[in-house]
């Protein structure tokens, strides 16, 4: 399977994806807008150039896996699902309505979401198990796992890195959405993480670092990591929380703030 979209023009344009996110967040009065914005380009590049999937079937048996360990960014996934056709505009508009299926964090029973995450530190161990299983089966399917830099506070993340490196899971690529914020403040102020690329290297990962909002740089790094022989890959994507809308950028209030009609239209204007 090669990456494909069932609708011509569905190119995972970051502006479109951010508009989908805003639409959901406004209609559902959801928080976590900035958490989703920081990984939009990462998702865009993965879906448009790397992930093999079936536009007609989110759980096709030969798909590549995208595991969103950082469940707080789930609206970026939903936005991609809307581009693919797994979700519709009506699904976005009905976000958080009683009896609907899209939750505010990643849930395994939503086709395409793969795992239940949002309680942090769960997605990467599962991604590692999937990669381990696929390798044992000798199947050429890849596993991409998006984690948050704040999420790297969690112990199981480091357990997983040890395991993935020890087992030489070259079919696993970990992408850190390094937006330098976590819920209560700057990542470096809460629990210092740097130098993160050096830590991945020391753990046995082939490691790259780039501007996480530059699609070309992301694609180049991901390609390099895929070409890397026997080690699992890690890409530290340097991002900005809230990227794409000027009044949200690098402002942690947009982890928690709900969109008013005024802010919604201001934000949409910037993305038109």
């Amino acid at each position, binding site marked *: 399977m090669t990456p494909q979209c069932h609708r011509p023009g569905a190119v995972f344009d970051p502006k479109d994806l951010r508009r989908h996110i805003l639409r959901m967040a406004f209609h559902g009065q959801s928080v976590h807008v900035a958490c989703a914005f920081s990984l939009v380009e990462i998702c865009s590049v993965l879906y448009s150039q790397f992930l093999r999937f079936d536009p007609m079937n989110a759980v096709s048996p030969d798909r590549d896996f995208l595991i969103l360990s950082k469940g707080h960014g789930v609206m970026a996934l939903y936005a991609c699902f809307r581009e693919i056709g797994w979700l519709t505009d009506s699904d976005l508009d009905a976000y958080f309505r*009683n009896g609907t299926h899209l939750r505010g964090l990643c849930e*395994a029973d939503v086709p395409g979401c793969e795992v239940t995450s949002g*309680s942090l530190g769960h997605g990467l*161990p*599962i991604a590692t198990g999937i990669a381990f299983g696929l390798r044992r089966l000798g199947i050429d399917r890849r596993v991409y796992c998006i984690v948050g830099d704040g999420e790297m506070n969690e112990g199981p993340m480091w357990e997983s890195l*040890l395991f993935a490196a020890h087992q030489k899971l070259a079919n696993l690529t970990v992408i850190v959405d390094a937006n330098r914020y976590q819920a209560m403040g700057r990542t470096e102020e809460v629990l210092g993480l740097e130098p993160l690329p050096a830590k991945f290297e020391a753990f046995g990962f082939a490691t790259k670092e780039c501007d996480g909002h530059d699609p070309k740089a992301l694609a180049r790094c991901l390609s390099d990591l895929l070409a890397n022989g026997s080690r699992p890959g890690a890409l530290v994507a340097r991002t900005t929380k809230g990227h794409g809308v000027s009044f949200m950028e690098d402002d942690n209030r947009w982890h928690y703030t709900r969109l008013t009609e005024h802010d919604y239209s201001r934000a949409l204007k910037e993305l038109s």
Partner: protein
Amino acid sequence: MRDMLSQLLVEAAAADDRFIVLSGDHGYALFDGLRAGYGSQFVNVGVAEQNMIGVAAGLAKVGFRPCVYGLAAFVPIRVLEQIKLDLCHAKAPVILLGDGAGLVYSTLGVSHQCGEDVACLRPLPAIAIYSPCDKFELQACWAEARRADHPSYIRIGKADRPTVHDAAIADTEPQWTNRRDAHNHERLIVAAGSMTSISTAIARTHGVPCLSVPRIKPLPPSLMAAVQSHRQTIVVEEHARAGGLFSALAEELASAESLSGRPHLAHLGLSGQFTSTAGSHEHALSEHGLDDAAVNRSLTAWITARPGQMS
């Protein structure tokens, strides 16, 4: 019982190449047979139990049938959230083996003792809980867990107790370990796991019926029927009172009709299932019959019911 466990692991590995055992650096000689014959189906993931559960969930997602081994103090206690989210919510067909449950590690102290594992797991949706008393019950529990399409926990207590049953048993329903010789049918002894052999011996001495309970969740209806047909029951288990087999029975009994025809103690609370949809808090409550309207209906029915009307 350990020899049987070792044999079951080898048999499963031989029969099914999707069967894979993960251990968090525990088990030592238990895995000798497995490692000798089917070494590639045994993975020591290191002293990293949280990752181990996630890896098992990932393996299950691509078609494997993992079995995760640990001491009960760690699997399930240390990894409870991983079991809830990675296994139960995903309904992953993973078997958890919690060895040394109860006070088996008496000399090592509190860190390795575990009297709360059943209590921690019982509220979780989708998981079955077993507490076999001997090799025959272990065999039956294992067979059922291997067939399941959801997670299972098998509690392994003190393994060198005398064998209780004479031969293999057909299923995990409650097993009479003393009935034929019983003459005192006022009282019933219900035992689980490591407490079954001693309970059975004493029951035989006094001519009291004794029932062994290999499966704690779902609680077998026949166990309730047996308890209700005796005037007094005592539960013997190497587990805390809160949340174990006693607690499970007490909850069922409280909900069942008392002699007066009304439950002495009724419960209106969460259903024991995960919520399945998004929405308001009131909507989430409605999935469990706890929204204001449903509480009104249930409480009104409870208040106005005549004896015998409500169960």
